[in-house]
């Protein structure tokens, strides 16, 4: 008995010895690719321009010294491009910390399918990556290093992940979500749009896509409304006017629900109910507030928002896209699986939208 125990112990130790070998490279022999960019190339329709932003590790993150390297490679496929980039750098490329993949606008208007498929297929790239559309090109966006950046390549990710800034204009999307919507029948994908402004990045628009290419980029105002419809608790300001004076509300909680109603006349209706609550942040009127006045202001906010949302929904409807997944909801609430999508395709172009908004202003801070 004792002998066999020893033998087993020796065997186990032998395994530990083996573990450190086999092509494993230490961390100081690795280059971490933090984001990937894809652009069209002038060389021809089959060639793309791939950019890889790599973080160069520094000893002390507090020193404020941030270094990164962006290597660009033109190639017919991304797999080939990576192998070519490997011979341009001295260390092993590691995609384990790759957090963003950016598609240049003209590339995204063509088709992102093949790259998206590659990111899901490749084993060391996580599904928690953030995709985005870059204007003017992915390369230009990757090369920007905002002065606020503390860890190389981190600023972009902090912004689109909303870990850092939390803006109502940023539409947070993950690769798995993009992947799901690209395949789902009845729901279309969206991506945030990242533009450059000097040496600062600006993410304030959303790109609506059909299954694989960008079709429409919404303006910041519509993007905020879109986010409010898509997610809960968007922290934003809302503006309305009363007697020519501007009123600003700070929204703390928001919740949008909808119901699809089949009309008997073949015309359906999508009924949205949006609940908002928050505080009054800015008021340019001189008079003191009263309860009746507050009710009127709430009503004004509700009407304003209802009008804007209806306009946005109609605008989306005209493009034929379905980023909010109405089609999927319709399919999920109807049991005639074979015909439901044909029904929906007939219904959607002429569906009516009614938007009911309930605004509640809880307080107006320290002043009455």
């Amino acid at each position, binding site marked *: *008995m004792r002998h066999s125990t020893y033998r*087993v112990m020796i*065997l*186990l130790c032998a*395994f530990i010895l*083996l*573990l450190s070998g*086999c*092509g*494993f*490279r230490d961390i100081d022999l690795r280059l971490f690719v933090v984001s990937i960019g894809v652009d069209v190339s002038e060389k021809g329709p089959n060639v793309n321009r791939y950019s890889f932003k790599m973080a160069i590790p520094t000893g002390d993150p507090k020193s404020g010294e941030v270094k990164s390297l962006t290597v660009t490679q033109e190639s017919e496929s991304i797999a080939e491009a990576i192998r070519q980039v490997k011979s341009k750098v001295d260390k092993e490329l590691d995609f384990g910390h790759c957090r963003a993949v950016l598609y240049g606008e003209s590339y995204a208007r063509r088709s992102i399918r093949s790259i998206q498929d590659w990111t899901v297929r490749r*084993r*060391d790239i*996580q*599904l*928690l990556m953030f995709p985005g559309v870059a204007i003017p090109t992915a390369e230009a966006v990757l090369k920007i290093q905002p002065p606020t950046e503390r860890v190389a390549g981190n600023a972009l990710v902090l912004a689109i992940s909303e*870990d850092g800034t939390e803006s109502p204009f940023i539409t947070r999307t*993950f690769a*798995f*979500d993009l*992947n*799901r*919507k690209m*395949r*789902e*029948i*009845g*729901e279309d994908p969206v991506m945030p749009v990242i533009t450059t402004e000097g040496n600062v990045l600006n993410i304030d628009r959303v790109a609506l896509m059909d299954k694989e290419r960008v079709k429409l980029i919404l303006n910041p105002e519509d993007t905020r409304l879109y986010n409010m419809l898509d*997610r*809960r608790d968007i922290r934003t300001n809302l503006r309305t006017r009363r007697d020519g004076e501007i009123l600003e509300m700070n929204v703390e909680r928001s919740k949008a629900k909808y119901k699809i109603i089949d009309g008997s006349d073949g015309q359906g209706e999508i009924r949205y109910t949006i609940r908002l609550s928050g505080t009054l942040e800015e008021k340019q009127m001189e008079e003191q507030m009263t309860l009746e006045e507050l009710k009127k202001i709430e009503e004004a906010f509700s009407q304003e928002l209802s009008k804007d949302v209806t306009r946005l929904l109609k605008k989306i409807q005209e493009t034929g896209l379905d980023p909010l*997944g109405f089609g*999927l*909801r319709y*399919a*999920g*609430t*109807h*049991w005639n*699986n074979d015909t439901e999508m044909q029904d929906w395709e007939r219904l959607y172009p002429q569906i009516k939208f009614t938007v009911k908004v309930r605004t509640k202003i809880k307080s107006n801070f320290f002043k009455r």
Partner: protein
Amino acid sequence: MSGVVRNKYFYYLFLLNASINLINFVPGIMLDDRFDGGMMSILLSIPIGAGLLYLFAKLIAKFPGEGLPEILYSTLPGWLAAPMLIVAAAVWYFSSVITLISFTDITDRYINPDIATYLILGGFIVVVGLAARLDSESILYALEMVLYMAVPLIVYMSWRALSSPFFSYDSVRQIITYTWNPPTYQTMAAATYVFTGYINMVVFNRVFHKFRMRHIILIIMMSIATLAVSMLGPIGFLGTIGAGEHEYPAFAAMDSLRIRYFIIERMIYVFYFVYMTLSLLNSIVHWHVSKELIIGVFGFKGSPSPKGDKKRRRAEWWIIGVFSLIVLVISGAINQYMLKDMAIVFVDSRFAGEFVLIGTLIYAAVKRKRRKKA
């Protein structure tokens, strides 16, 4: 014969099998049929699986302290009992082969692509092979402890998944509207696997002396929850269409989860370690059961004890050696499509085998009763 354990260990055996169900080959097989009767098969599998489990528990309670080898050899002729035991052991061992190989593959994909596959598998085999030799009671105690650590984490992860804002309930609803399609045998066989933990009792019954089945409703509720999460969880994250495109749907779904305020960011690492422990434990239990069934054929009676005779010990080492060798050979020979086919073959034959097992036990029970009367 060694000591006696309490009834709760039966539930642990069930729970181990049910929780392993979230990640093994079962979700993949069920998701293949998500548009053609997958949901209906799951609904039907609940009464069938629970019924089989209940029947088995009632039957095995009539043979306190006896394992399947003892029961078969005392009621059936030897030429029939031996092949039955060998086939049962082979089928049960086969499932651990699939678990081990697919988990090696998962480790290779998600954790470290740089380590050679044989090393990972070798490490797993050392753990499983050594632990499978322990006596039945020790394995049950280890099982209890691991489950106490793993189950809270599984509940936490499931809750996180279902409450994520990116979990698409509309996709889930869409799949639910496909419920009324006719069920398929394959998916039903896969879904009943949740209940199959009871089969381990063919050996572990040796340490149960006053076994009585109670609270079957708990088992049913647990399996409904497991089946719902394993089928609908991946659909919520990967979509109605996308869920069918992943090799390991549960892992892809967990890769979609983020823990923001924690040391590690990706939920998949927590998930991986929980399920590595459970997979290994499940393989240990399966190897133990298969080994005991085969040893039963060679006429070594009773459960193993530390002071067991030398011959028995040598036989154990041989069996475990052969088991390890088979895993290594199969792992080198197959690719991911064949692995899935193997899983389907296992699931189908196991489902049929369960009926045979229960039929045999009914026959044995009747015969035993008559003999007592006579």
